[in-house]
């Protein structure tokens, strides 16, 4: 079945996860004790508790793009984000994306999107843009 054409304004299927302290610890090198893994270190730095590393949520966006546009779209993807609000263990973080431009180029389309991750409080954890090369037959979550 041919996937529907990609159009400006299309919203991607969001990817949502509850962030755990275990996730935060696993994201750092083994044995690392810092503001991302240890509540005491974070409090000493003036934070309420350990906060997740901002780049951890780039992976949520990469996963969302991969699910939407397929494995063949991974190489050539450009993700550019600003890191904004901190995330604490127990927060639910949802990656979202919206198509802002589609440039067709033969069998490939260059899809531009605004992308962001938000918490259950509604604030943006990271936000920015992505450009994804979508090859014919890749879209609609083909992996």
């Amino acid at each position, binding site marked *: 079945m041919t996937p529907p054409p990609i159009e400006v304004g299309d919203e991607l299927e969001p990817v949502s996860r509850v962030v755990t302290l275990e996730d935060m610890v*696993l994201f750092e090198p083994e044995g690392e004790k810092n503001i991302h893994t240890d509540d005491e270190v974070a409090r000493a730095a003036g934070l309420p508790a350990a906060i997740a590393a901002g*780049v951890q949520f780039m*992976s949520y966006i990469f*996963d969302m793009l991969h699910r939407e546009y397929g494995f063949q779209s991974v190489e050539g993807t450009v993700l550019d*984000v600003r890191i904004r609000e901190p995330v604490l263990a127990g927060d639910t973080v949802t990656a979202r994306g919206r198509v802002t431009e589609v440039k067709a180029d033969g069998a490939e389309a260059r899809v531009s999107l605004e992308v962001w991750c938000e918490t259950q409080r509604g604030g943006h954890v990271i936000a920015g843009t992505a450009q994804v090369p979508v090859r014919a037959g890749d879209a609609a979550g083909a*992996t």
Partner: protein
Amino acid sequence: MAEGERQRADQAFHELPIGTDIGSIEYTLSEERVQRHLRATHQTPYPDSGGERLAPVSILASDGIWLAEARFDIGESVHAGQRLEVANIPIVGSRVKVSGKVIDKFEKGGRQFVVMDVVSEDDRGRVLARGRMTGVARYRPEGGAP
């Protein structure tokens, strides 16, 4: 931070030339490392390709941070922005070299930010990703402990 330490950090920041080569670091993209990243991020694994296991490209997003740690004090850990341009998907088991240079610096809100361009390459000579990282970082010209 003690006043003397702050003055040394300020001096290092103001004397840090744009274009400074940060050097390089290397690591092995081991199966264990990849599994740890997949568990941390709950991602959908990529399919194998040509009999080789592939690692999620998001694992490269931290390369600039590990490189910066080698030459900067990033204990304050204010990471403001990150750009990642994926060239090739990394292969599990490969050796990754990360190199970079300072391309800009600025002060904002009383903090000193450094902008670094970073390139990750594997031991097959492939560029895996090009990144740009902006964050609070205090330069240590000789590397090592702050």
